[in-house]
């Protein structure tokens, strides 16, 4: 099965992925509606795109009280069914990765659905920092976490130093 791969070393923080994602969903350029987000740690020069990696545990799906989240058999993506979703937002709390979102206008939850197997973010990335490739397990999380951890570590050191 194909999965998203994030290669932080190639990311330049241009957020073309966020714009492509927002465009697919809204027909406008509205990054606040993107379900892929680029975390920018300027002082460490770390730019880390992040989105749902369609985890097997799928706590969002388990938590949903009305069974509004299903699995797309073609892509293995966990998908919100708008006509079933009642907008309780329990899934946004259940997701440990912060990749479930809530739309205040439609009162529905929304998340990455891999664009049905042709992710717009991957096509939009000018540097190849996003790939959609065959993988058994996401192999990029460790290096991603290492990079982001360095960014956070720095911020904490600074806060500690100032206190």
């Amino acid at each position, binding site marked *: 099965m194909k999965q998203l791969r994030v290669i932080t070393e190639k990311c*330049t*923080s*241009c*957020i*073309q992925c966020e*714009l*492509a994602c*927002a*465009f697919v969903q*809204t*027909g*406008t*350029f*509205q*990054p*606040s*509606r993107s379900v892929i987000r680029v975390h920018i740690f*300027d*002082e*460490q*020069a770390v*730019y880390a795109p992040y989105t749902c990696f369609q985890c097997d545990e799928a706590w969002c799906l388990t938590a949903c009280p009305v069974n509004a989240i299903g699995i797309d058999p073609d892509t293995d993506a966990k998908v919100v069914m708008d006509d079933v979703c009642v907008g309780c937002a329990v899934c946004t709390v259940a997701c440990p990765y912060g990749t479930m979102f809530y739309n205040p206008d439609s009162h529905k939850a929304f998340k990455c659905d891999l664009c049905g197997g042709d992710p717009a973010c991957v096509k*939009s990335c*000018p*540097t190849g920092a996003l790939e959609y490739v065959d993988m058994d397990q996401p192999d990029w999380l460790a290096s991603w976490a290492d990079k982001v951890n360095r960014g956070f570590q*720095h911020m904490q050191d*600074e806060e500690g*130093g100032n206190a």
Partner: protein
Amino acid sequence: MSATNTMHGWTGTVLRVNLTSGNITKEPLNAEWARDYVGGRGLGVKYLYEEMDPSVDPLSPENKMIFATGPLTGTNASCGSRYMVVTKGALTNAVTTSNSGGFWGPEMKFAGYDMIILEGKAAQPSYLWIYDDRVELRDATHLWGKTVWQTEEALRAEIGVPDSIIASIGPAGENLVRFACIMNDLHRAAGRSGVGAVMGSKNLKAIALRGTGGVSLADPQAYMEGQWAMKEKLRQSPVTAEGLPMYGTEVLVNVINEHGALPTRNHQQTVFDEAENISGETLTETRLVANKACFSCTIACGRVSTLPGEASSKYSVTTNPQNWKIAGEGPEYEAAWAMGSECGVGDLDALIKANWLCNDLGMDSISFGASVAAAMELFEKGVVGQNETEIPLEFGSAEALIAMAEKTAYRQGFGDALAEGSKRMTETLGRPEFFMGVRGQEFAAYEARAIQGMGLGYATSNRGACHLKAYTVAAEILGLPRQMDPRATEEKAEITKVFQDATSTVDATGLCQFLTFGVGLEEMLPQLSAATGVAYTLEELVHIGERIWNLERLWNERAGFTGKDDTLPKRILEEPIPSGPAKGEVNRLGEMLPEYYELRGWEKDGKISEAKKKELGLE
């Protein structure tokens, strides 16, 4: 505000803040002006022209400031990141249009505004917090005195919205340093002509933004086809696909030096023997950490550099010493030139540090470096001595350069003279011939004696000497769109006019000028038309550029400028280059200027003719 709902590309709303009264109003964008001037530089200048007396003191409450985006700002068009600060320049007394990238301009669109117009002067230090349609003018007394980086951190914490984007001034803007800039995203600058001093004179420390809206398109499908086509072309251009991503703008140091066109030691020479040390190649090999892109940019020319180990403590500074252990942006080519070869400084680490200092203190690294260079020549010629300067201002002294950055921003000692810019400084000290610039603004990094067209471009630039108004270097050195002889004056009037007009249009769209290394108005046109729903033609886009250029010129005429100001320093016009590949050259402005006026359809003395005004709809 019915216009809000019917416009695409543009948000259709202008935010007006009167800092004197605290009045905050939202008004519909003038749709006719939007069509005729597009946005950014064009629309900003149009509003400033219609609303303000150009003869006012730039640091008085009567001066207005306009932060203007274009219809493609905030879209996924490659490099749709730009906003423009339009005001009367504190350095120049001329109209200025200072451009910056990063993420701030797009965020303003997402919050719902094409432009923010600032009027008057706040009674006490203030900042503006804009969260979509909520706009508040808040007290900033506790932020006054903070550097740019301190301000961003403190303000973001205070607001409590981690995704907010901030533009602010540093101590230089507060202290009315005439070349203070406005910084956003820590390292991006609306750099030139002293827009930061104007903001400081209004007691406005910062504008913080958070926008959750979007930019809509009149014809999404046509728009998407247009942006894919332009990105494909950018991928094929050697400059936008290889040169800029690999070495950044700094790639130019060696190129320009080899042409004998790298001004050195306040333009006394035009070849710098330590150029290799401060070049893009050296920066990339020894100090580069990453490329950083502005919003939606597929080029990513931004340099993120670092000072490893001992390099971080080589020159002591008092400003935020903890910062010198981390990564920061720059230096760009212009900064590396102004503080490097123009001051005779060949130590890249010193330039990285001085560049960060300029960013953190909030001042233009070009005018700062060039002003220090002028001061170094005053020192060399014995006009000022160590009694006045305290630190020996010798060419090549990195210690002097770095010390003066802090002294200038805080107007301490001789820094107070430097803070006035090199024109006022050299005049006050009785040696105006050491000022290297036009209309009060220091030159950029290209020697006008070695590249003739740049001389004409500098002399006629509406905001004072500037490389971003007609980059004839592209043709004269890089061979884009075709190779021209840099030493010849033939055809330079024509190419200067063509570049000035086309650049004015690009600056109005919200796109970045660096695109023009790989694409032209032809490639931008489909996106602009499809985004806005206005069926522009290529001829109209060129015409719009000419209209913007002439309106800026008309504004300057009303501010008191005449054709007599279209000139260059005596050194550039009369003193032949002493050595190097361009040895013996002077700039032959007299051969180009009359032809330029004629092509422009202006009077022989440079005044805009009534016929031209009528043709462009300016009167």
